[in-house]
């Protein structure tokens, strides 16, 4: 069975009933951020600055898409390896992020943060960027344009397929 999840998280029950291994389709808003955007966000937060988007109940997608095409949308936009963000993820979850989307295993600290703050880690399929880009209906540049593909984008997604890799109890399938 394929579950649905509306994002950002408004109905907490929808998030809490997800179990590691479930196949889920996401609809709503997610924000892209990968290596350099994480570094900048964390440095900003440590200096007391506001993050570039409201972290509360939002999801971060580890993605550096190909450039926008004539239609204004990305041609290819799949997940990048999540482990590179492991050291920075618990701080963001602590500040309100309820889910991260990427590929590959996470560290024990990320699993613990998911359990403690009832967040999830969703695995998108690595190597399906063309398919996943077609599930993005709108995109808007939010922060760090100087980072190019690594900038923060607000994405409106529809029926975006993922697997629950770590559920809100901290259980992992990977």
């Amino acid at each position: 069975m394929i579950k649905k999840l509306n994002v950002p998280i408004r109905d907490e029950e929808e998030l809490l009933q997800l179990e590691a291994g479930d196949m889920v389709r996401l609809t709503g808003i997610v924000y892209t951020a990968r290596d350099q955007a994480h570094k900048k966000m964390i440095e900003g937060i440590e200096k007391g600055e506001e993050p570039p988007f409201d972290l509360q109940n939002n999801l971060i997608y580890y993605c550096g898409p190909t450039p926008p095409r004539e239609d204004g949308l990305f041609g290819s936009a799949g997940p990048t390896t999540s482990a590179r963000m492991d050291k920075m993820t618990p701080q963001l979850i602590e500040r309100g992020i309820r889910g991260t989307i990427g590929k590959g295993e996470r560290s024990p600290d990320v699993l613990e943060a998911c359990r403690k703050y009832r967040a999830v880690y969703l695995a998108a399929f690595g190597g399906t960027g063309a398919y996943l880009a077609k599930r993005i209906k709108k995109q808007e540049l939010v922060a760090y344009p100087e980072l190019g593909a690594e900038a923060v984008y607000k994405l409106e997604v529809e029926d975006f397929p993922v697997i629950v890799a770590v559920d809100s109890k901290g259980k992992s399938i990977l």
Partner: protein
Amino acid sequence: MTRITREAFGNAFRDALIHASFNLRPDILAYFKRLRDEAVQDTHKETVNIFIDNSIAACAEKRGVCQDTGYVQLYLRIGADTVVECDIQESADRITAEVYSSMFLRASIADPITRRNTSTNTPVFVHTETGGGEGLEGHIMIKGGGSENLTRTAALLPTMGKNDIAGWVIEQVLAAGSKGCPPYLVGVGIGGTFEKAVHWSKRVLLRTLGETGMTDDEREIAGEIMTETNRKGKGFQGMRFAETVMGVQVRTIPCHIATLPVAVSIGCNAVRQARFVI
């Protein structure tokens, strides 16, 4: 004597680069179709179908097979009595910059220290060898950063044998987990020098799935790696079905009596490549 003009090289390289960017390897596409047909659970079938649909969308709509449009590696063989009348590095870089910009591919190459993007996806990493029949043969490989980060080397002992080598490779592949987009292609370079071991470990990823031609020793090592990684690995995308590794290719090269360099390279399921001949 064959003379290859700047224009002839440029055209062949450009066509191959564009083909590689938007087409999944046919052997990998056939492999996915077989997995889909063999899948028992609906979610598994649906998962593999996403990969097949992805390759169709990439090809038909000129979308990168993966958003990580990689670094461009060019393997050239310049045959006997053949003259290339251009600066290969300059031509390859110029055309790569042009193709990546005009076809909306991601520029993914940055200064290692400042992380400032070169914004051209260059330099192209060129390897040249000479010999064989007249003319020029090129292979383009476009490889992503996720799988590149899983490359490993070891200085094993010259007293170690096939089992030790296979055992070390199996450990590295299992440690990679699902970070590099399994099912994987695994390339192993054994012997030579360190840089040659790494070079060949990556270069053999160009071989077609199931390609024969390995020596008995190479085949035995490849077989053991394939069996054990698939017995202990986490399967397709870490989802505990089908295979972790879709193919293993091994290349051995004579080495110094005091050494046994071994390297393993991992190709993701979307490793892209194309061949051209002039």
